[in-house]
Structures are given as C-alpha cells and as structure tokens.
C-alpha cells in the first residue's frame, strides 16, 4: 500500500465501532468515527475520505439511508465507495422473517450484515478501494 487510506465510520453503536475500528487500525487504515448522522455528514463534507462505512438504523430511524441518498446527489461524494454494515435484521427482526435484507434498496456499493467476520470486512474494504481506484484511473 503506497499511501495510507482514510476511512470514515458512521455508526451509533460505540461497542461495534470499537471492534471494527481496531480491525481496520491494525490493517494500517486511518479511521475516523462519527457517532451520529449529523456529525457524519459534516465530516464527509469537510474532509476527504477514501471510503465510508455506514450503519442504517441511527437517530430517528433508518437515517443511514438518508445519508446514502444525500451522497448520491452530491457531485463530490458520489464517487466515494460506501459499504453499509447493518444490524437491521436483528434490530427489527419481525420485518425479516427468515428473509435477507433487500440488497438493492439503496444505491451503494455493498451491503453486509452484522456481525462481520474481520477477514471478510478487510476483503470487502480493500476490494471496494481497489474498484474505486480503477474507476478513477479510467476517468483520469
């Protein structure tokens, strides 16, 4: 890795964040955290990140989806790879009687469900970062 990649996690669950942050820190990523959607969106707009890891159920409800949609409307943020990590099935189990979370409900790059295996998480992150670099290379 020639340059340390900057990631942002937007998730309101401090324990989960602590877990994935330590995994990503150990893999030599620079990780920032925002614990609510407002701070998260502020951070996205003021700083430059290489990737976003986003939770769904925050604040008043499914606010992660609102962030993903706002990002798609923003010319600068549209290119940023987004990995949704959600525990929505556990949080609202009665809405998912044995069915998967619908994968294409919002236009993001990838959706995985909590709990996440460390190696699986690292694979997804590096794959998305590489895909974003390839896209950039093509555009450039």
């Amino acid at each position, binding site marked *: 890795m020639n340059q340390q990649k900057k990631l942002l996690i937007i998730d309101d669950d401090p324990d989960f964040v602590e877990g994935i942050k330590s995994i990503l820190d150990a893999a030599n990523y620079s990780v920032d955290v925002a614990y609510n959607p407002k*701070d998260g969106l502020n951070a996205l707009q003021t700083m430059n990140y290489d990737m976003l890891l986003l939770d769904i159920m925050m604040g008043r409800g499914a606010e992660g*989806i609102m962030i993903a949609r706002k990002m798609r409307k923003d010319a600068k943020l549209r290119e940023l790879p987004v990995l949704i990590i959600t525990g929505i099935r556990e*949080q*609202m189990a009665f809405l998912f009687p044995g069915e998967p*979370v*619908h994968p294409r*409900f919002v236009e993001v790059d990838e959706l995985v469900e909590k709990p996440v295996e460390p190696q699986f998480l690292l694979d997804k992150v590096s794959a998305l970062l590489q895909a974003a670099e390839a896209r950039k290379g093509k555009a450039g």
Partner: protein
Amino acid sequence: MASKPTFSDEIANLLHASHGNPIKICMQCGTCAGTCPSAPFMDHTPRRLIAMINANMKEEVLASNTYWYCASCYHCTVRCPCEIDIAGLMYALKRYSMWKGQFKEGLIGPVFSETFVKTIFRSGRSYEPILATTYLFTFGLQDFITEAQTATTMMLKGRLPLLPPRIKRLKNFRRMIGRVIPVGGLE
C-alpha cells in the same frame, strides 16, 4: 475524531435531530414528573430517568418501564422550563431498547409496537381487534368482559370493522415503505 461515547452521549446522538435542548441541561425541577399522568405507574419518574441517563446508569434505565409507560401526551415537553423534548426522549429510549433487544420482560409496549408496524405493513391500516390481542389477555376477567362488550357495541354501530381494512394501491404503499426500510422479500 471522537472518544468512545458514554450512555448519555449515545442517547444524545439518538436525539441529534430533536428540536429540544440537550438533556444534559436538565435542572431537575420535577415539572415533568408532576405533570405526567402515567408517573404513578412508572418505576422511575421522568425527572429521575433523566438524572439516571446523565449519570450513565445504562442497565437501570433500560430495565425500567418508564419510557414504555409514556402515553405521548407531550405535556412534559410543553411544560419543561429547559425546553427539553422529554416525550421525544421517551421515544428515543424505546427505539434504543428495541434495537438492542434489551427491555424489561412482561411489558405490553414492545409487542404492541411490533404488531402495529406489522399490521400497517400488511394492509396500510391499523386494525384494533388484532392490536387488542397484545394486551387483552393481561386483563382480569371483569375488565376483559367490559372490553369485549365495548368492542361488540362499537362493531354493531359500525365503528369497528369486522374484517381488516385495506388501503387502495397497497402495492405502491409497500414499495414506498421499501424505499425507507430495506424489508426482506420486497421486489
């Protein structure tokens, strides 16, 4: 960016879009507790619950029935001299405890909420006879009979539908919900 949030920070994060003031400024005047019509049935009054949140007593707060007994009358919110949205806080605690799956056993509130959401999902309308099953069996025989009599009278007068009502264009409605929540099995 930020250090690990405490329990009171977590609750503040849930209320990030609230129009009320942060609960940290509560001055413990007790106006909410004195105003609340459900306070006699609660483990802790709203005033005490706010103090417990500010003291980061997570386990005790989640184990209390206070926020499930909130009737959402908003009287506390209106009268709070610090302009804290206390009813909004009660809703936030309901969400928090349901998302974490940690709430006092034997409460009607969580099952009632679940049944309500499911009914809306299925038909677009709430249907009282189904909702009533979530709490009716916790009543004593006398109250049960009174409730059944009221329901029968309402049904005879056409105030309570016999069959669950459905809205028109249910498919569109379900698709709309699917855009807000990634429900399983949606197209």
